[in-house]
């Protein structure tokens, strides 16, 4: 009975992905798939089935002006893509030329090293933060960096009574209409827990009892007031790992 319907729906998905539907039919499928998860899944399946056909079409370089247009539409600087914005201009150019010469594999490798470097920074800075003779030695600390590396951006220091102080390590500006939200992902867990909003000049929070180091701490960019779903909706801007508290701690 429903076999016919399912077949029908599956073929509709196939026709949609193949591209033979006219404008009105396409829109109808798009609307319907919004509410029909079976149709939605069927579309994804057909995309995976048919997409190898794309290999039959010869590549064609886009016009040179397209990247700046894309970058502008995405709100990113066409040059800032190759290096941190603080890098001298000449260095940016050199790096850009270099990167362009690299093939993909090498680019990917470079990204991998970037990530490794970011993790190294976390370790090194965390150790130095711990060794700094300060009046209030934190029980543990984490340095938050962008997922692709870059300069340390936040210092998170755990204090007594489950408190964690967040201090910005560089100037941070949050676009109007947006908020930064903190998340904790205890080691071994899969779903991050919301820890509240944070302003650009930092804040001290109290961890709920369910969230304990060792954990990953993240800051995501969310709509005003934070993610409505209790899970990060926007991009994770910075993250870092906080080790288990020192034995003297109360955690």
């Amino acid at each position, binding site marked *: 009975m429903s076999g016919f319907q399912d077949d029908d729906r599956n073929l509709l998905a196939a026709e949609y992905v193949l591209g033979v539907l006219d404008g009105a039919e396409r829109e109808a499928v798009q609307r319907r798939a919004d509410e029909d998860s079976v149709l*939605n899944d069927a579309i*994804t399946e057909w995309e995976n089935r048919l997409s190898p056909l794309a290999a*039959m079409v010869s590549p064609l370089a886009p016009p040179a002006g397209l990247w700046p247009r894309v970058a502008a539409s995405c709100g990113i600087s066409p040059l800032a893509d190759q290096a941190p914005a603080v890098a001298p201009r000449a260095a940016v150019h050199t790096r850009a030329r270099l990167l362009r010469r690299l093939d993909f594999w090498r680019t990917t490798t470079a990204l991998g090293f970037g990530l490794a470097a970011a993790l190294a920074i976390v370790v090194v800075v965390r150790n130095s933060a711990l060794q700094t003779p300060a009046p209030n030695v934190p029980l543990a600390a984490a340095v938050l960096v962008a997922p692709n590396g870059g300069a340390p951006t936040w210092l998170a220091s755990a204090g007594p009574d489950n408190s964690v102080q967040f201090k910005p390590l560089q*100037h941070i500006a949050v676009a109007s209409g947006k908020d930064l939200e903190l998340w904790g992902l205890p080691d071994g867990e899969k*779903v991050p827990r919301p820890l509240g909003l944070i302003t650009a000049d930092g804040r001290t929070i109290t961890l709920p009892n369910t969230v304990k180091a060792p954990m990953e701490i993240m800051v995501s960019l969310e709509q005003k007031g934070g993610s409505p779903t209790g899970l990060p909706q926007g991009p994770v801007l910075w993250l870092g790992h906080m080790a288990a508290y020192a034995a003297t701690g109360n955690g």
Partner: protein
Amino acid sequence: MALLALDARSRLASSSRTGNSRPWQYAHQARPVREWHPLSTQISETADRGDDMLTALLLRCATGDRTAFRALYDAQSSRLHGLAMRITRDPALAADATHDAFVQVWNQAVRFDPARGAAGAWLTSIVRYRALDITRRRVREQPGYEPPEQEDDSPDALARLVSSDEGAALHRCLGELEPDRRLLLVQAFTDGLTHNDISEKTGTPLGTIKSWIRRSLASLKRCLET
């Protein structure tokens, strides 16, 4: 530096819901969330390594990584622009489609889910749907608009399919179709032809074309599932 990143992401966040190529499909919040992690770069071991690279870049784009986005553009813009040009058959429309597709990729990279499909297929779908939507709109707004004809693929173009495992399976299953039906199916995909276009192009009644295509797709599905 932080300021730049925030500005960029916030601007795109405000426009990210305007993308119209099935943004619902990859919304991770639409599925039960069990394994969320910002660095979940686990990659399907069966995917080929080229796709692993694209997957890694897309996951990094999802975190706002501009370097990864530029690398993705360098890696894929010619491939995607070729697809857009083939469907729109107009340099300006093709540039619009490629532009829109990359903006959508940047805005919706967070919705890409490697568990649901290959990165290359995701990118292909985004640019094709943009090109199809743009072309269909153009036809609607300018009745009688006839995109310029273009050359058919060389007979050996099908051989390019075999470069990936998935492509090889598809190639084998396409081989089970009648040659003329196979050509129709392939051209519908690459050129973005509607049922109507094919009917006019081949001088075959619309109903016949529709049933040919449905039957070809059904047998393709059967073959690929065995």
